[in-house]
């Protein structure tokens, strides 16, 4: 086979690969949106939705995951953890926090906090201002988040969670304290307050 032929075939395959659609991200248009038949939410603006079947969550972002995001967790059952994907954990996998549907509201907050810390994404992760909160007709909680990552970047956010049919539903918004939290907090609050569990 001539060199020109080889180059042509390689180029053809490269073009083919580059044209392939990235299924991980899809565009979310303003309006009422159903998320994986788990949540229904309303948004006034466009978001990019990241989804991969192997993850226990999907998220919406405008400027990128590390700058701002709303994370929607799939419901978890007794005896499981928030992050089931093993790559999030080290060899101490067996020690990860485990959900129990008998948890009271404080324990739900504690569980979510422990899971995020366990994921090692932030070097510090603190929750405050826990309050009663209703996700539609589901009794739950809301709380505020303060975090910092390895690079020293500060984050702020808030979360809601509740137990329905022995399963934990949870959603949180987080963004860099500098610039992005203030830019999206009002919209994120509206979105989170519009959540209904399907």
């Amino acid at each position, binding site marked *: 086979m001539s060199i020109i032929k080889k180059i042509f075939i390689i180029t053809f395959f490269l073009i083919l690969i580059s044209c392939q659609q990235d299924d991980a991200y899809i565009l979310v248009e303003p309006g009422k949106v159903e998320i994986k038949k788990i949540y229904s939410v309303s948004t006034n603006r466009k978001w990019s939705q990241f989804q991969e079947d192997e993850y226990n969550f999907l998220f919406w972002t405008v400027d990128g995951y590390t700058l701002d995001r709303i994370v929607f967790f799939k419901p978890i059952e007794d005896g499981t953890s928030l992050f089931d994907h093993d790559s999030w954990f080290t060899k101490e996998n067996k*020690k990860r926090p485990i959900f129990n549907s008998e948890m009271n509201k*404080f324990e739900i907050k504690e569980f979510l906090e422990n899971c995020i810390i366990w994921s090692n994404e932030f070097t510090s992760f603190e929750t405050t201002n826990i309050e009663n909160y209703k996700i539609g007709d589901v009794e739950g909680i809301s709380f505020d988040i303060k975090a910092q990552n390895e*690079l020293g970047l500060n984050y702020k956010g808030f979360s809601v969670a509740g137990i329905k049919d022995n399963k934990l539903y949870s959603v949180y918004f987080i963004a860099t304290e500098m610039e992005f939290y203030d830019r999206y907090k009002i919209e994120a609050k509206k979105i989170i307050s519009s959540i209904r569990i399907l």
Partner: protein
Amino acid sequence: MKKVFLYVMIFFTSCSTPIGGAKKVEDIKPQEKPSIETTEAGLWMQMNNYEEKLKTSGSRLKDKNLEKYLKNILCNLTFEYCKDIRVYVQDIPYFNAFMAPNGMMVVWTGLLLRAQNEAQLAAVIGHESGHYIKRHSLKSWLDAKARTDLMVLLSIGIGVGGVPAGGNIFNITQLLQAGFMAKHSRDNEREADKIGLDFLIKSGYDPREAPKIWQNIIKEMELGEVDKPLAFLASHPAPEERIANLKKQTEGYENIKNKKNMKELKGKIQQHLHKWIKNEIRLNNKLEQTEFVLDKTFEGTGDEYLFNFYRGEVYRLKGDIDDNYEKAIDYYNKSIKEKNDFPDVYRELGLLQLKNKENDKAKKNFKKYLEIAKNPKDASIIQSYIN
């Protein structure tokens, strides 16, 4: 071609000198810096880069007073090298401290939680300073170079040099340990122990505290999972031998009443204690192991109410198995007996009593919580449990 490249690399590595042509590695002198053409200068450069990242890292504990306090301990131990060694605190809940060849000393919060007094902490700081003074990292590097093949050596070099900007600090630290700590020979460890102990005695600290910190760590390790030793022990050989050596060296000081400074250390870490203990509990180690850490943390402090409260927390967080909730309730009640105006214990006690269907007792404790805590942020939730 590959062979030529290999020979060229071997030639270049064999030409480099450790500290500017000297065959024997001498102690580093105060304020001495390696010459630019040396291997040591290369190690310093890599560690300087790492140190710059550590300065703004999210894992660095932002407590200037605590770092200043540790620096003061160092300067009391060795005034000569005070300017050369910088001490940083990293918020990682394991027992560890390490010394980089450029004078960057890092102490983890898990070690600060476990040190029972300033003398024990000074023993570790003195020991790490000994590694710096004796240029143990450089010796380890040269030793590794002499023993390993070129490609392994190159991969270590690339690994240490290639610390990623946004990388995980646990991996970086493991890398550092792998590169510098784990390779310390027994002789180097003994040497650092001796220097640390000399510093301790010279500075008026009780030298008998030095073996105690190692004894506690061994005990803790035995109570936990012995197949996974604590980071510091994994890289420091023969702890039993170390204790025996340290005890032997301190025999002549039995009647000397030197300072321990427990209050000073506890005072400096007081504001972080709650968070560090929470992180310790989060490690989800064996009950006996966590209880031992709490036992040693609060020994002699007089804070029995906190000690019992956190013991209750350990059992509560283990879940409703093996009478854990009953034990937690017992510890909460003991805490209240010691101090009856600590609000958190009433809330936790009430929540567990609610689980046990002891509603009246729970309501009483919730009311007490609201009364003492004065408009807590979680009042609406507690109030809903009362109603």
